[in-house]
């Protein structure tokens, strides 16, 4: 980790990364994997990645194609959206997907937790019977 590694402190135990690139700037697309790798050591191991290709409203200046973005996303096992903060396209969808994934994960964890507690209780009641 180079410059700015102290910034990683703020990323500790993140459950989700929204990773953005600019569709009009190929170099921002090329560094995506490097970006993710540099935070991997501090986030949750199962940190959910969502890939966003931003500035999608700039059709004429677009260099990184939807197909390229989508391909990288499937490699990262991440949902992919082309977004634009200017026109608003895709932003809501991306956050809804994000919240959905987070809620599912959190509920699954809670369920597992309850299950463990339950089986613990069961074993206690069983031991009382004897």
């Amino acid at each position, binding site marked *: 980790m180079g410059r700015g590694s102290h910034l990683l402190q703020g990323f500790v135990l993140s459950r989700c990364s*929204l990773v*953005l*690139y600019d569709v009009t700037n190929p170099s*921002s697309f090329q560094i995506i994997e490097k970006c993710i790798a540099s935070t991997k050591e501090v986030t949750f191991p199962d940190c959910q990645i969502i890939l966003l290709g931003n500035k999608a409203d700039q059709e004429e200046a677009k260099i990184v194609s939807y197909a390229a973005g989508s391909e990288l996303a499937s490699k990262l096992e991440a949902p992919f959206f082309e977004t634009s903060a200017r026109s608003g396209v895709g932003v809501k969808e991306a956050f809804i997907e994000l919240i959905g994934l987070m809620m599912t994960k959190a509920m699954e964890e809670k369920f597992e937790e309850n299950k463990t507690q339950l089986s613990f209780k069961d074993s206690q009641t069983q031991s009382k019977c004897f």
Partner: protein
Amino acid sequence: MESKSTQASPDYQFKIIMLGDYGVGKTSIHQFYLHGKYASTESVTLGAYF
């Protein structure tokens, strides 16, 4: 329903990070999501913003 506190405490809280090269629009996306509007800022966020 009790409404003693004006702000309900959330059932779930998630920490989300936004990553990317400078100038890709991390601040813009975040501002758009929170406030529903696009603010054309030409200033660059330095380092990190929480």
